[in-house]
């Protein structure tokens, strides 16, 4: 294990940034998001949830795919994918780390999404344990341990010092290059981790019952009358899907430029009325149907196809950001099973 005093963290950031591009949570005008590190940036490792989740690194909000040159009847196709240079992400929390596993199940399954894969391979992930999980956090419900995320290097703050442990070869390689770190000696994080586990246990939504969400209940859950009440206030704004680290729906669109046509992909949302609209009809005509799709996908369909792994990591972003105060916790409480009140 290695360590550094939290007062000297800017030294660590500069040193990593001198080796590779470094991205970490930065506060700008009161809003914290992952940004590329620059000298003097207001790094914010107190805020647990960046507004945009870390999925943006591998599955960006918009991403160029190809350019077309159109000349009369002729078309020429040119690759417009950017080369993924090696980069480091610092400060990834346990929930976002788990979301990468979930995205991997989609994008790395055959046929492999090479745009995603290239960025995934170019990254070195430094995770950070959550010393103070918040009221809206319920990662524990999905079996995630906020005190001990892995990644390539795991970090945790103990008594004003940050401790580091390499979890992969790639992580060890980076860790060994960092001269600003000192050996941690016999300092250990066990007591702090135990403390975090205790805090997580006591959060209000730490132990939601998910028993009902299984494949054989699909039709029963789909037909539950409670969806009407649950979805009544939904505006179809799509905020919940955009902030969600595991939502992976995308659109492919063309943009006409001076040189030709650029095709890019961008996040899309199953909450939008246009999402499934076809010439003759729309199979999901009501917001109830769209709302139900989002949660049935995360809690029933996705696990059915992926060995029981749920498509939610309990980060609580949708809990914080929905303008109508709707969220997955309310769905789980209503439909998940006994003792959820």
């Amino acid at each position, binding site marked *: 294990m290695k360590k550094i005093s939290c007062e000297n963290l800017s030294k660590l950031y500069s040193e990593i940034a001198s080796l590779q591009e470094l991205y970490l949570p930065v506060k700008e005008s009161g809003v914290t998001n992952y940004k590329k590190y620059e000298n003097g940036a207001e790094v914010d490792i107190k805020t647990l949830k960046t507004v945009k989740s870390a999925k943006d690194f591998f599955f960006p909000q918009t991403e160029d*795919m190809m350019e077309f040159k*159109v000349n009369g009847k002729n*078309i020429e196709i040119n690759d417009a994918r950017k080369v993924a240079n090696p980069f480091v992400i610092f400060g990834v929390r346990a929930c976002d780390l788990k979301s990468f596993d979930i995205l991997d199940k989609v994008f790395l399954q055959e046929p492999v*999404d090479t745009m995603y894969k290239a960025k995934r391979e170019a990254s070195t992930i430094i995770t950070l344990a959550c010393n103070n999980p918040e009221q809206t956090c319920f990662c524990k419900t999905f079996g995630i341990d906020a005190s001990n995320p892995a990644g390539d290097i795991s970090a945790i703050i103990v008594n004003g010092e940050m401790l580091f442990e390499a979890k992969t070869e790639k992580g060890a390689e980076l860790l060994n290059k960092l001269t600003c770190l000192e050996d941690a000696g016999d300092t250990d994080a066990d007591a702090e981790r135990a403390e975090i586990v205790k805090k997580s246990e006591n959060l209000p939504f730490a132990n939601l019952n998910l028993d009902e969400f299984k494949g054989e209940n699909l039709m029963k859950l789909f037909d539950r009358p409670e969806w009407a009440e649950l979805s009544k206030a939904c505006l179809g704004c799509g905020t919940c899907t955009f902030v969600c680290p595991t939502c992976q729906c*995308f659109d492919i669109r063309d943009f006409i430029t001076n040189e030709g046509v650029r*095709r890019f992909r961008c996040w*899309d949302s*199953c909450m939008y009325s246009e999402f499934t609209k076809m010439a003759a009809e729309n199979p999901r005509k009501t917001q109830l149907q769209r709302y139900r799709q989002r949660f049935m996908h995360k809690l029933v369909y996705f696990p059915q196809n992926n060995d029981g792994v749920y498509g939610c990591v309990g980060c609580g972003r949708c809990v914080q950001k929905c303008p109508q105060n709707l969220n997955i916790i309310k769905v789980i409480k209503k439909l998940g099973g006994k003792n959820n009140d």
Partner: protein
Amino acid sequence: MTNEALFPVVGVITDIRRDTPDVKTFRVVTPDGKKAFEHMPGQCAMLSIPGVGEAMFSITSSPTNTEFMEFSIKKCGCLTSWLHACEVGQMVTIRGPYGNGFPVETAFKGKNMLFIAGGIGLAPLRSVINYVRAHRADYGTVDIVYGSRSMDDLVDFKEIQEEWKNEKDFNVYLTIDRPQDGWDGHVGFVPAYVKEVNIPTDRTAILCGPPIMIKFTLQALLELGFEKTQVYTTLEFRMKCGIGKCGRCNVGNQYICKDGPVFRMDQLEELPSEY
């Protein structure tokens, strides 16, 4: 350019023929005159005109055609109108093949076949029918029930009259919705016609057409004594990626683009009715 799932290749339209007032059939090859890729009956491809749109179409030509692919396209929006207005020599982009296709080499093999189509629904079936013709010994009797609004709306009319009707052990039943000058065939809707013809229940049935036609024809088949496990259909859903990643065509735990578009009726029963 690599040949990855979301990245198309260039194709050229080498022939356009008008089938009906709003359906044209387009022949597509690569710029060096080859087929863009191999496919199985019932599989689809994404065609695009950059800046106009990209959409999924059934490959209506048979895999046994080694020279080109064909698409029967109904004019209904941005891309399809653009294609209807273009001329031979126009380049497009093409990617695929997508979807599971019909089980022609497994469940269909050795079976008596019943094809039922409405309107443009013949597009995906044409590929299977011609595949069966090319491997005639592998399949039994073939019945085809095909209906459209009018005589002019029957897709591939010439091929049906000149080729399919003359094929050994092929029975072709055509119908149009309303009487029309110059039509001495059957008049009436497909579901009623299917019952009237009273097709033996030893057939494997494939149904393709507008949802309402599928619903009533399935009812008719069940009344004739068919089991749901004998009846196949292909679904249509809005699509973007074609490979089960963009999430658009997800219904229940299935992705229509990848797990479909061909489903057996009993499989559809296990899905929420959102298609």
